């Protein structure tokens, strides 16, 4: 049949895939191996994958040497959750507006939103810093949440709008004819029907917000108890004696929650990432 490969083609395909997967996963494997070694064995020459006395000790000791680790992880979750909620509050009505209503300047405003996507937070860091200072947001959660939410709105609107445009509008029109108010339609018809799309947007926003917690926290926050995981761990890097095994253990524990979320919800995540590749 069309998709039947010859034996040597199988070998080539699997060899290529193995190489590719190895490149993507090698750092995680290395981090795991380092986390298993006692500190004395990490600094061995020549390099060895497996060394003597491997154990999970670092996973217990790290809570003592990185005393706020659990707080960093909770901060990361809290910030990413708050970003997601604020972004959804902005994205859902806006996407409905773009998908269903005709109004002056619609395409121009939508284009402006997309153009924002091109400008990263670093470019605006100077004025954002001054703005956060003026608002008194420096060294608070707000300085990490508000900019994060603002920068995730454009992608959210784009995803949500394309989802809403696929829903036939006859239901909304029928409800309108029956005298339902617009807010009632949004709450009772759009929200339930668009729930799968909303979940995709929410997960994409959450994953993005969890992945990008470095710049704003590094720049706007100097209070350690508010730090998200990346900046919390980053502080340990400038030191003379880096406890590599425990930092690797802490890093792996810190990324475990998102990896678990990813494994269970990967269909939604991939749908969010690839919207636009298929059409438009």
């Amino acid at each position, binding site marked *: 049949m069309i998709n039947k490969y010859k034996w040597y083609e199988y070998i080539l395909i699997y060899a290529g895939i193995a190489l590719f997967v190895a490149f993507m996963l090698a750092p995680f494997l290395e981090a795991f191996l380092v986390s298993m070694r006692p500190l004395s064995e990490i600094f061995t020459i020549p390099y060895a994958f497996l060394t003597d006395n491997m154990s999970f000790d670092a996973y217990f000791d790290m809570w003592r040497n990185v005393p706020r680790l659990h707080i960093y992880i909770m901060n990361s979750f809290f910030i990413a959750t708050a970003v997601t909620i604020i972004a959804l509050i902005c994205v859902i009505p806006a996407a409905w507006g773009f998908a269903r209503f005709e109004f002056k300047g619609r395409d121009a405003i939508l284009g402006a939103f997309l153009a924002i996507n091109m400008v990263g937070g670093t*470019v605006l860091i100077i004025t954002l810093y001054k703005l956060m200072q003026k608002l008194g947001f420096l060294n608070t959660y707000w300085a990490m949440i508000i900019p994060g939410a603002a920068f995730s709105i454009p992608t959210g609107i784009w995803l949500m709008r394309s989802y809403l445009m696929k829903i036939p509008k006859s239901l909304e*029109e029928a409800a309108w004819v029956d005298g339902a108010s617009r807010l009632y339609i949004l709450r009772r018809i759009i929200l339930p029907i668009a729930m799968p799309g909303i979940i995709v947007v929410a997960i994409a926003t959450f994953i993005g917000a969890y992945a990008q917690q470095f710049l704003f926290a590094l720049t706007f926050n100097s209070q350690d108890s508010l730090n998200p995981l990346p900046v919390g761990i980053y502080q340990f890097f400038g030191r003379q004696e880096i406890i590599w095994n425990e930092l690797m253990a802490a890093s792996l524990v810190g990324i475990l929650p998102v990896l678990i979320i990813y494994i269970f919800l990967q269909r939604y995540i*991939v749908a969010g990432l690839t919207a636009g590749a298929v059409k438009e």
Partner: protein
Amino acid sequence: MNALDGKANYFPYLLLLPALALTLFIVAWPLAETFRLSFTNSSLNPVEEYVGFKNYIKIFGGKFPAVIVRTFYWMFISVTLKMLVGVAGAMLLNCAVPGRNLFRVLIMPPWIVPIAIGVFIWSWMYNGQFGMISGIGQWLGILAGPFEFLAFRNSSFYATIVTDVWVGTPLVTIYLLAAMQSVPGDLHEAAWTDGASRFYRFRRITLPLIMPAVATMGLLSAIWTFNSFDIIWILTEGGPRGSTTTMIIDTYKTAIARNKYGEGAARAVMIVIFLSSFAAFYFYMLTRFAKRAMNNGGETS
């Protein structure tokens, strides 16, 4: 939805209000303010004066032109590698072999986990004495002895690129894979019945149909790579001796580390100008693809 439009034409604007307010406040106003600051001598000093184009003249008389060239060079190599690895990866994962769903799951972690954490691991891997890469290099005989990748100008430049490719490739791959899977199967079957080889089918059916996705992703990837901050900052902070200082890193150092807001803003404005030209090209491409899709829809079944 004309029935819903009714009399109250302000309603759609009401729907946009939260998103617009936050965006104007956090993105549009700071953008305008950055332009204004670039013409001032703003610093920690509370007194701020307009200095005309002095900041621009100063940065273009210094190292900044070299930084611009380096940024484009860094971006060009990184994006090219991401696209090459991404296309190859998507082709492999598109093959109908057992286990392919598992492989698709396995390639995503670099994109899913916090970027900074992935880069922490890389900074260990580049360690010359004890890191994995130097170790394997010596074992294979490529390296004569321990090699500290982040300590030299050339090697740190390429090391930061490799890490950037590692972070960016999963998205490129999964995006192009989705595009390949949307190629109608009957096209392939018809060509196969006519005796077309696999390579021929890829070149004449798959490749032309995924070209819009390749172009879109390439440009988006270029924009993101241009904005890349975390990777370089964590690995090298722009060093050694400026070899990994891109425009973004230069701006951050000037403004945040040295508190020269005016000069930093002038650098930021230059970045915005470059990004705008990318963006303009991106929108031009999107509209062209949309038109072509409409034309094709008209003539084929």
